[in-house]
Every structure is written in structure tokens, then in C-alpha cells.
């Protein structure tokens, strides 16, 4: 009983928060306090659900029966628990960051921003806790719609165009493919409940499994499998807190989370490997991993580069799902957490750089590291975690996915993972390196003016005593930005040390 209250509260609190944010629209300070209190309380509610889940229980809440046998139901299992914890915890941090960013950047329409943000989190939690595919589908659509105003936030032509791409791809795939898949599943299996071992075995012709899997995998557009990934780079016109929490964590992770849910609880891992229906998916996911990394290399805009990196990293999880061995599934699930912390740190840094220096292109960031050392150091931590190097969380998930590939005798995908790691290094480390090496822009200008100075050395002196530039000088980002990004960076470290707890929590999903 008590658990059901917490489930309901976790989903409803952000909605109540939405209304309160709306009511305090004219008083920014009150509005932000409401956001943070709501975020905190929501996280506490989610946290209350952790002990029963660790003890092996699966708290359940049935809200309403929409059609006979088809209900709006929530049921918490380890995978959803993990996703819920990540989304609600990072919401708190992002809220602080958003205050620093939105005010530092003087964004308009901030009330609408915070409202939509809260609705998006509520629907992400509903996705995490959903007890059947039907509930998940509903929450999935709400998430799409609530994030659309965030993408078009700036209301420029560019933002509107991006919004069209965003909505167009996510809507058309979810209605055009996912809904078909869901209804087909319902017609074939007579249930949509997430059941360990799947519900489709024996209910559907083996040859058709491939078609159904296709409907699901491309229907879940949020997983950004190529070639339906275009919406994610388009969504980067949104303010950075949105890119950070939604388009690196909540929305995209909702996509791959759904992929794992469908593979584990609808198809059933064994059924999928028996029929061999997922081989094509491995290939597509593997190709996406590599291609997206290659595209990332070509992007000069930092957020665009991070977006393509996200696409590549999401494909890791899809690949893990497609391999469908017990190691790979747990590894894929862990990757949701690991990548969430790593990528949000990177986005926070990108936003901090934008607030502090108004620079968005990597080529402009020369020598910036000396002025913003804390930001760039955190960037390095995040980057290493995404690359998958110890002692950071990202290393564990890649390890398990690689193990899974070995279990499934698909050794080629181990190679894919290795090459991808190299590519990650190639597109992430230069951002950091450029911050500390090479002459600063002003000095380049000076050099051009004939004052010829040695870039590398000069930076060291100027870093300590900020140069008296012409007009406005670049400083470290505001504290509201800096503290959150360090918290998530530390999170990457903590996930390395405490990975065993995460592993133990997740291991029941494959039993």
C-alpha cells in the first residue's frame, strides 16, 4: 500500500510542481525554489521504492482499466528502478544548473521552460515504472509532446524547423511503427504486461518475429538508431539544460530503456536468440556505433559533436539488447547509467563554456581551459567515462557488453566496440586538449599584430592573472553551473567504485 503511494507520488509530484511553477511565473525566485523542492521530493519518493526492489519485490499500482484487459498500470522492476533513480536524481542537479544557465544566458519564457521540464520528468518516470507496454507507450508520447516546446524554446526559424524534424520523426515512428507493433502484440499474445521471459513465444510465427522486431526497434525513435537519428542533432537548438538532461539522459535513455524492456519482457531474450531475429539489429546497431562516431569527428559545434556521440553510445545499448545474452543485457542496462552521468557532465561543460564565453564551436576554444580550469577538468572526467577508461564508470558497461558479444560468439562486435573507443578518444580528447594547448585567440590576434608570442608558454602566465582583455573578460562559469557539473563528474567516479551494487541490483532482470 505504502509503496503504491510512493509510485503515484513520484509521477504526480512533478505535475503538481508544474502547476505551482505556472502560478509563481511572475516571481522567478519562488518559481525556482518550487522546481528544486519538487525535484527533491520526487527523488525522495523514488528512493523510497529502492529497498523493496532490492529485496526482490515488485511494487505494483493499477490506475485504471482503459479497455478490457488493458490497464494503465505501474510495476517496478530493477531496470525501471535504475532509470527512475537516474532521471529523478539528475533532475535535481539539472535544476540548479538550469538556474545558472537560464539566468546567465538571459533566456525568455523561463516559466514555460520549467513547466515543460517538469512534465517531461513526470513522463520519464512513468516510462520507467510502467507495468505494461501500453502504459509505456502512453508515457512515451507524452514525453515527445512535452519536450517539443523545449526544443522550439527560442522560437527562431531555426528552432521551429528543428522542432518540426523532432516532432516529425518521433511522432511518425511512434504512431507509424511502434503503435502497430503494440497492437499486433496485443492481438497475438492477448496481453501487454511486461513478463519475465517474454509473452510472444509460441504466439507468433517465427518468421514474423523479424518484422515485429523491426516495428519495435524503429518505432522507438528515441533510441536514435540510424537512419532515424536526425531528430537528436536537431534537438540541440534547445537550451543546454534540455540537451543535458533530456537529450542525453531522460528522452534518449527512455528510448534505449524501452528497447531493453521490449527485448527482455516482450520478446524474451531466449526467444530472440532462438529465432535469430536480432542479427540484423546487431549489424544496424554496430554500424550506428561506428558511423555516428565518424560523423562526430567532423562536427565543429560542440553540442552537435556530443549529440552524435550520444547516438553512437545509444547504439551500444541497442547492440547489447540485440546480443541478448545475460552479460550483455546487464551491461546494456548499466550503460544507461554510466553514459547518463558521463554525457550529462559533458553537456553541462558545453553549457558552462557557452554561458561564460559565448563560444559554441570547438575551434574557438583554444586556450580556454586556462580560464575555465574546473570546467575543462570535469570535461576530461566525463570524456574518459564515455570513452570507457578506468577508473570511471563507463569502463564497466563496455566490459560487460564485450563479454556478452563473446558469449554470443559475435566476436566482430568486440572489434566494433574497440574501434569505437578509439574514435571516442579521437573526437572527445581534442576538445579538452585545445583548451590547454595552442595559443589563445587574443594572442593569435596579437601575433597577427606583430607582438609574436609563444602560445603554449604565454597561456600559463595569463591563466593565473586573467588578462585585461578589451571589453568583457572570460571567467570561470558561475557557481550554479560549476557545482552541478562537478557533482556529476564525481558521480562517474563513484559509479566505477560502486558498480558491483548496480550489477547486483540489475542481475535479476536476466534470471
Amino acid at each position: 500500500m505504502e509503496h503504491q503511494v510512493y509510485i503515484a507520488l513520484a509521477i504526480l509530484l512533478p505535475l503538481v510542481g508544474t502547476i505551482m511553477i505556472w502560478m509563481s511565473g511572475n516571481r522567478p525566485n519562488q518559481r525556482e525554489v518550487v522546481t528544486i523542492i519538487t525535484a527533491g521530493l520526487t527523488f525522495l519518493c523514488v528512493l523510497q521504492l529502492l529497498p523493496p526492489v532490492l529485496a526482490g519485490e515488485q511494487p505494483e499500482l493499477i490506475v485504471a482499466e482503459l479497455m478490457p484487459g488493458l490497464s494503465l498500470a505501474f510495476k517496478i522492476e530493477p531496470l525501471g528502478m535504475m532509470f527512475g533513480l537516474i532521471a529523478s536524481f539528475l533532475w535535481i542537479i539539472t535544476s540548479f544548473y538550469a538556474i545558472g544557465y537560464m539566468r546567465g544566458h538571459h533566456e525568455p519564457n523561463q516559466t514555460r521552460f520549467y513547466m515543460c521540464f517538469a512534465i517531461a520528468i513526470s513522463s520519464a518516470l512513468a516510462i520507467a515504472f510502467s507495468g505494461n507496454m501500453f502504459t509505456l507507450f502512453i508515457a512515451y508520447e507524452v514525453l515527445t509532446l512535452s519536450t517539443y516546446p523545449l526544443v522550439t524554446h527560442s522560437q527562431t526559424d531555426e528552432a521551429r524547423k528543428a522542432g518540426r524534424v523532432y516532432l516529425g520523426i518521433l511522432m511518425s515512428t511512434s504512431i507509424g511503427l511502434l503503435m502497430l507493433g503494440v497492437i499486433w502484440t496485443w492481438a497475438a499474445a492477448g496481453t501487454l504486461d511486461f513478463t519475465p521471459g517474454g509473452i510472444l513465444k509460441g504466439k507468433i510465427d517465427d518468421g514474423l518475429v523479424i518484422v515485429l522486431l523491426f516495428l519495435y526497434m524503429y518505432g522507438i525513435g528515441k533510441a536514435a538508431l540510424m537512419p532515424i537519428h536526425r531528430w537528436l542533432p536537431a534537438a540541440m537548438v534547445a537550451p543546454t539544460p534540455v540537451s543535458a538532461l533530456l537529450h542525453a539522459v531522460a528522452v534518449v535513455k527512455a528510448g534505449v530503456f524501452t528497447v531493453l524492456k521490449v527485448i527482455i519482457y516482450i520478446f524474451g531474450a531466449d526467444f530472440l536468440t532462438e529465432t535469430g531475429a536480432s542479427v540484423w539489429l546487431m549489424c544496424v546497431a554496430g554500424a550506428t556505433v561506428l558511423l555516428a562516431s565518424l560523423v562526430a569527428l567532423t562536427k565543429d559545434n560542440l553540442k552537435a559533436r556530443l549529440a552524435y556521440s550520444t547516438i553512437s553510445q545509444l547504439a551500444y545499448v541497442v547492440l547489447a539488447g540485440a546480443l541478448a545474452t545475460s552479460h550483455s543485457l546487464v551491461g546494456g542496462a548499466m550503460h544507461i547509467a554510466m553514459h547518463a552521468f558521463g554525457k550529462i557532465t559533458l553537456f553541462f561543460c558545453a553549457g558552462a563554456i557557452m554561458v561564460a564565453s559565448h563560444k559554441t564551436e570547438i575551434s574557438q576554444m583554444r586556450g580556454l581551459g586556462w580560464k575555465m580550469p574546473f570546467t575543462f577538468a570535469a570535461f576530461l572526467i566525463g570524456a574518459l567515462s564515455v570513452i570507457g577508461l578506468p577508473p570511471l564508470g563507463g569502463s564497466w558497461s563496455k566490459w560487460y557488453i564485450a563479454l556478452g558479444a563473446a558469449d554470443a560468439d559475435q566476436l566482430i562486435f568486440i572489434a566494433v566496440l574497440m574501434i569505437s573507443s578509439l574514435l571516442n578518444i579521437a573526437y572527445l580528447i581534442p576538445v579538452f586538449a585545445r583548451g590547454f594547448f595552442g595559443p589563445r585567440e587574443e594572442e593569435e590576434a596579437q601575433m597577427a599584430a606583430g607582438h609574436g608570442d609563444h602560445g603554449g608558454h604565454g597561456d600559463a602566465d595569463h591563466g593565473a592573472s586573467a588578462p585585461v582583455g578589451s571589453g568583457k573578460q572570460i571567467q570561470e562559469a558561475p557557481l550554479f553551473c560549476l557545482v552541478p557539473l562537478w557533482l556529476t563528474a564525481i558521480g562517474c567516479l563513484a559509479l566505477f567504485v560502486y558498480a558491483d551494487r548496480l550489477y547486483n541490483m540489475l542481475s535479476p532482470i536476466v534470471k
Partner: protein
Amino acid sequence: MLSSHLPVLVIIIPLICAPLCILFRGKDQAFGIALLATWASFACACLITARVMTEGQISYELGGWPPPIGIEIRIDALNALILLIVSGIGSVVAPYSRNSLLLEYVEDRSSMFYSAFLLCLCGLMGVAVTGDAFNLFVFLEISSLSSYVLIALGFDRRALTASYQYLIMGTIGATFIVISIGLLYQATGTLNMADIAKRLPEHGYDRTVISAFAFMVIGAGLKIAIFPLHQWLPNAYTYAPSTVTAFLAATATKVSVYILLRFLFTVFGVHFSFEILPTAAPLLILAILAMFIPSIVACFQKNVKRVFAYSSVAQIGYMILGISFVSVTGLTAGILHLFNHALMKGALFLVLGCIFYRIGSCHIDRMAGIARRMPWTMAAFVGASLSLIGIPMTAGFISKWYLILAAYEKGWWYVTVLIVVSSLIAVIYVWRVIESAYFREPPDDLATVSEAPLSLLVPTWILVIGNVYFGIDTSLPVGLAELAAKSLMGVN
């Protein structure tokens, strides 16, 4: 005692009140009478539905004459559902009309308006309750004639040509229907629909019956506006007064669909309509064409009222699609969409009425940035549009769900794909409007525009909330639709 007369009261009340509106002249009195009459018949409809759900079919002998000679009123689940739709929409639209009309008419015409409105209501409900084929034609004509008047009352002078166009097409349709009924009478010697159904198999399916069938399908098709017989609809909906558009869009075509259902399945019978004659295939093809061509046309319209007029033609396609499956699930889907489409289109046209009330136009460019000035109105628009697209938790989703389920049952893959693709076209034409209203800078002359008055907003929001409510608690419409579908298909 009164309760046994409910089936006739539901039509008598608006019929008697219609001339009263003229007698009392004053616009307030006329409004009051119309409001009470619609609400009273809605109450009757609710009571009737409750009785149908517990007791099953109701039969009422008009004037105490038993059926073959006297006129019978016969109400089963399908009739009850249609009654609910018509009277429900009527009672939401009636309070809305008062303020909406102020702008659109010369004052002294408003008593005429209410009189015509009540007659139209009476006619539509009469079609829905009667068990007599000729009666059905008479009621249909009452509703049609009064709707020509209602459309001609439009603000724009083009309403006159629109009404004339509808008059011509509608009359052809009605004539076809009466020819069909005449042929049936000749063949069977009775006008009671249940009786005709009983005697037809004995009579045999000769050329008379086949021509009757053809006349009926085409005649009803004209009134329904099945693609490509829809030419009258876009103009009529665009130029009619906002209230009228909302009312007619939500009810008139639905009642015509009922006529088609009743004749195809009950009077002619499933065996004759679909096994002896190949009716299902042409219906299927026309339905699919309707789902696409008008939807695509809607994407290019500048007048938002016209966008949704074309969208109505497309949505009718879904209902016909449901019918063409000739299965219980298919019919359930079709009938369910009848109900849900009334809710969503009613809400959408009421929203457009609110906008017209404030800015005097429904042009998409004039609506730029209007969400900032009329946030509640546009929020209602978004809600109803989501239902139109078929987003989960709205009524529209439930009908799509059943439609796709029905297609799966039949194993018609391509149809399921076509259904979803066509609903994606709906996303395009709806989103053009939303984008214009929310994400474009308002022109300067919009600065003085304020939110629509409560008398318009409340009815609009009732329908929007209905869209959400019936997307979550589906027991009433799905229950009735399923009962109706089973009785039409003759299975229990």
C-alpha cells in the same frame, strides 16, 4: 408513467418548442426555450440509454397502434448511442450559440435560428429513434431542410451558395433514399424496418431489391459525404456560422452513417449486402481514398475551418473503413469513431468559433501568435487536435486502436499501415495551425485581442474534457458500440 413515453418525448420536446421560439420572438426567450428543450431531450436520451443498457431493446407503439399498421419507435444500443451524440452535442452547443450569434447575426434573426436549430435537432433524433422507413425519410428531410437554413445564416455571403450547393446535393441524396424506400415497399408491402428485414428473404433478391439497395447506398453516401460524394461539405462547413458548423459536423453526418448501417445490416441483412452483393470491397476502397485525398487537401488549406472540413471527410473514411470490415470488431471501431469524432470535431469547431468571435477570421496567418492572447482557447485546440491525431489517453486513440485491431483480425496488413500513415497526415495539418498559433510573432493588431468569454470557453472545454475522459474511461462508448455491433452482425 412518463418514463414509458420517453422514446417519443425525446423528439416531441424539440418539435413543440421550435414554433414556440418564433412565437416568443425575443431573442432571450428563444434562447431560453432552445436551451431547455435541448437539455430536456438530452436528459431523456440519458434515461433511454440507461434503460437500453439494462433491459435491452425498447419498442414503443406510437399512439398505441401495433407495428405493422402503426408507427413503431425502436431503440437498441446503436440508436441510443446516436441519440446521446446528437442531444449531447446539441446541449453543449446551445449555450455556446448565444454569444457566438451576437456577432454573426442581425439580432432579429436569432429566434429564427433557434427554431431551425430545434427542428434540425428533432429531425436528427427522429431518424435515430424511428423504426419506420418512411418516417426515417421524413425526419431526415426535416433535419436537412432546417440545416440548409442554418448554413445560409452564415456571416459570409458565400454561405448562400454553400447552402444552395448542399441543398442540391442533399436533395438528390434524399430523393434516392425515398426511391429506395418506395422500391422496398413495393417488394415487401411494409414500411416497418424490422418487417422489411423479415420479408425480404421470402420475397427473394430480385432486381427491385437490388436497385433499392443501390439507391440507398448512394443516397446515404451523399448525405454522409463519403468520398467522392463530399463536394458539398467543405463549403457548407466553412461558411456556416460557427455554432452550426460545430453542431452539424458532430451530428448530421453521424446520423447519415447510422442510416447506412441500419439499412445495410438490419434491413437488407449481412447476407444480402455483403455476401450476395460485393459491397465491402468498394466501400473499403472509397474509405481508403477518403482517408488520404481529403487529408492531403487539408494540408494545403489556409482557412482553418476548411482544414477541418476536409479532415471531417477523411474521418468519415475511418467510419466507413470500420463498416467495410464486416466484422464485430470492425463495426465496433466504426461506431466508436462515430462517437469519438463527434467529440473531437465538435470541440475543434467550437474552438474555431471562439477565435472567430475575437478576430473575425479563421485564416491561418491571422491566427499567428494567437496562443499568447487566447491561451485557454488554444489549449483546448491542442487537446482536441491530439485526440484527432489519436494520441493515447484521448478518445481518438481508442478508435484507432479498435480499427487497427479489426484490420489485424482480418489479416489485412496494408490496411493497418494505411491507417497509421493517414493519421500522420493529420499531424501535419494540425501542426501547421499549432505552430502558427504558438511559435509565430503576433501581428500588432492582435494586441487588443483578449481571451474568449466564458460562455464560449466552458462548452468548448466540456467537449475537450470529454475527449480525455472517454479516452480513459471507455466503458460507455465501447460498451454501447460493442452491443450495437453485435446486434447488427446478428451475433450474441
